[in-house]
């Protein structure tokens, strides 16, 4: 109990609160800019956290993640340009409502639903994660290897259009994760004579290179061809969300929070699925389903609560097993590792103070999103008007500077540039960058647990029959992948 109180006290320190507030602000601002999104905001913010304490750093990045979620809704509602696929569901009702003279009401609905959905999933995380971690600690290397392979297969099956491309990307990520000194022999692998590569590829450089820089290059390229979207919504005066209206949104908000939490807890199933499932469920149970799609508050509430609920629940597999469920969680793993903390069940024993501090910081981040979001609605509406000619060149420079200061030299910046080329090609070839990053993060864990399993099983594959749970997972992996691919093929045909 003392530990929990100390952790909460640390999370409430001025420096941590400022870090969380700064993160929320960065997240909202970057998320609101068309073309930029929450994972990019996290990738760009990681270098800023190098000088911070682990709690302040992770708190700041959690703030970016939560702020970015709401920021995405700003662009989706005012410009009809979703920064992320899940925000596309918000545009269905958000933009028509904004166009009808009620942009403030649409943004307020998105903000409050987002905060409620996020808080619900954070509560589930806080209650479930410590309990699940106790069970996870009972899993040995064989079981862990089976869980990791199943998770990676799930992610590969569900990301992008093609399973082969998903597995290719995950394998490439895992292959690049082998760069550096081998854990067993201490021999360098793929170092090409560079001593800088002995510690492995710097995750911040790879993440920014693959995620942020190619997106900026694509936006720079688009800027030569297309005109920038401009807000086409003006307030009609009666533009505030009344308490009675918000109370009526209770059902879609809590339904969305439930759907988002359930989906977020499973690796690979992302915010987009949660947002659209919640929207479909609201349409199914609505008394006036014909109003959805024309600017109904229910539609905005359902999608925003669901996609925000995913973010908290995503940390359940991350903290209990060390498995990142999506891109944002994968970037958070990178941040944890940079600050010397290894996510997984042991985190509750080795870094309990940090974990409980993180839980407190997450709650604080929700409060900050509510406060900053409410106070800054008018300002955030202006952000979408900033010319892209200013935004993208500046963000590109920020990526270079961020990697330079975080890695202390130009080597990592050159690496970032190489990975930017790879990321650009991957995006153009429709190869999932998400699978690549998750493969990169999970690669060392999978390799280590497989090596330990082989030694534990005495190099005898039949010995896996002594590990029934692992055996079930190994058998389930191809079956689950096949079912998911078949269902997706049916959906796309339908």
């Amino acid at each position, binding site marked *: 109990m003392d530990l929990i109180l100390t952790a909460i006290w640390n999370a409430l320190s001025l420096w941590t609160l400022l870090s969380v507030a700064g993160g929320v602000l960065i997240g909202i601002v970057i998320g609101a800019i068309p073309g930029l999104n929450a994972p990019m905001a996290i990738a760009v913010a990681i270098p800023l956290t190098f000088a911070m304490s682990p709690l302040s750093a992770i708190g700041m990045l959690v703030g970016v993640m939560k702020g970015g979620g709401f920021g995405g809704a700003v662009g989706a509602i005012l410009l009809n340009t979703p920064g992320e696929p899940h925000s596309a569901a918000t545009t269905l009702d958000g933009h028509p409502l904004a166009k009808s003279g009620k942009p403030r009401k649409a943004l307020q609905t998105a903000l409050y639903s987002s905060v409620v959905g996020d808080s619900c999933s954070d509560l589930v995380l806080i209650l479930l994660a410590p309990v699940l971690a106790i069970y996870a600690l009972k899993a040995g290397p064989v079981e862990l290897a089976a869980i990791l392979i199943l998770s990676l297969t799930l992610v590969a099956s569900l990301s992008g259009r093609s399973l082969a491309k998903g597995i290719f990307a995950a*394998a490439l990520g895992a292959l690049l994760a082998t760069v550096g000194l*081998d854990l067993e022999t201490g021999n360098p*692998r793929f170092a090409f004579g560079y001593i800088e590569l002995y510690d492995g590829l710097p995750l911040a450089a790879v993440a920014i290179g693959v995620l942020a820089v190619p997106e900026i290059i694509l936006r720079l390229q688009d800027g030569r061809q297309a005109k920038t979207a401009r807000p086409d919504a003006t307030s009609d005066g009666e533009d505030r969300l009344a308490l009675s209206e918000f109370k009526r949104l209770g059902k879609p908000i809590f339904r969305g929070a439930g759907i988002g939490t359930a989906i977020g807890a499973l690796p690979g199933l992302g915010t987009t699925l949660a947002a659209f499932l919640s929207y479909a469920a609201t349409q199914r149970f609505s008394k006036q389903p014909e109003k959805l799609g024309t600017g109904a508050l229910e539609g905005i509430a359902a999608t925003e609560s669901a996609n925000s609920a995913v973010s908290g629940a995503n940390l359940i597999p991350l903290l209990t097993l060390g498995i990142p469920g999506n891109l944002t969680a994968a970037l958070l793993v990178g941040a944890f590792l940079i600050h010397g903390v290894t996510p997984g069940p042991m985190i509750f024993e080795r870094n309990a103070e940090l974990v409980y501090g993180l839980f407190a910081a997450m709650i604080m981040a929700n409060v900050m999103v509510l406060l900053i979001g409410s106070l800054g609605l008018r300002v955030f509406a202006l952000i979408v008007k900033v010319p892209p000619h200013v935004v993208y060149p500046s963000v590109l*420079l920020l990526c270079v500077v961020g990697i330079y200061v975080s890695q202390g030299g130009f080597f990592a910046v050159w690496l970032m540039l190489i990975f930017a080329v790879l990321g650009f090609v991957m995006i153009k070839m429709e190869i999932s960058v998400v699978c690549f990053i998750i493969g990169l993060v999970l690669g060392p864990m999978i390799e280590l647990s497989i090596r330990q399993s082989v030694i534990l099983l005495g190099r005898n594959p039949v010995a896996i029959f002594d590990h029934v749970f692992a055996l079930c997972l190994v058998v389930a992996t191809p079956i689950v992948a096949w079912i998911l691919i078949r269902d997706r093929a049916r959906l796309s045909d339908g």
Partner: protein
Amino acid sequence: MALLWWIIPAQVNDRGSFGLPPSLAPRALAWVMVLCGTVLALQNTRTPAQPGTGLNLKDIVFLAACVTAVGVMLMAMQAVSGWIGRPYAGFLCVAPLALIAFTALHGRAPIWVYAFNAVAVPALVYVTFWWGLRLPLP
């Protein structure tokens, strides 16, 4: 294939291993990539890619222009401090020119945007990192 027959044998040393050899994971992953690549190649022969998708010459030229701009900026930042004999001057001297180049790559922009990007943005970044975060820039 180059990975399997050339890069892995040259870059991964298996001496001293008592469990699984260090090259096993890279080799296994390389084979997975070869397998997936073959599946994708077969899929492409059956259903050719739709026009307008994938990487085209225009994309490659634009990517090369952007990479060149960033690459020249990095080399200039590394070299400038030495040329003028002042440490940490690379960013201040090169960033304004690099931002003008990035803005030009984005297409036609009003002159005030060039001026803003060349003066205000580097100044803001400089102040934030040097004075705010106390982190030295190149």
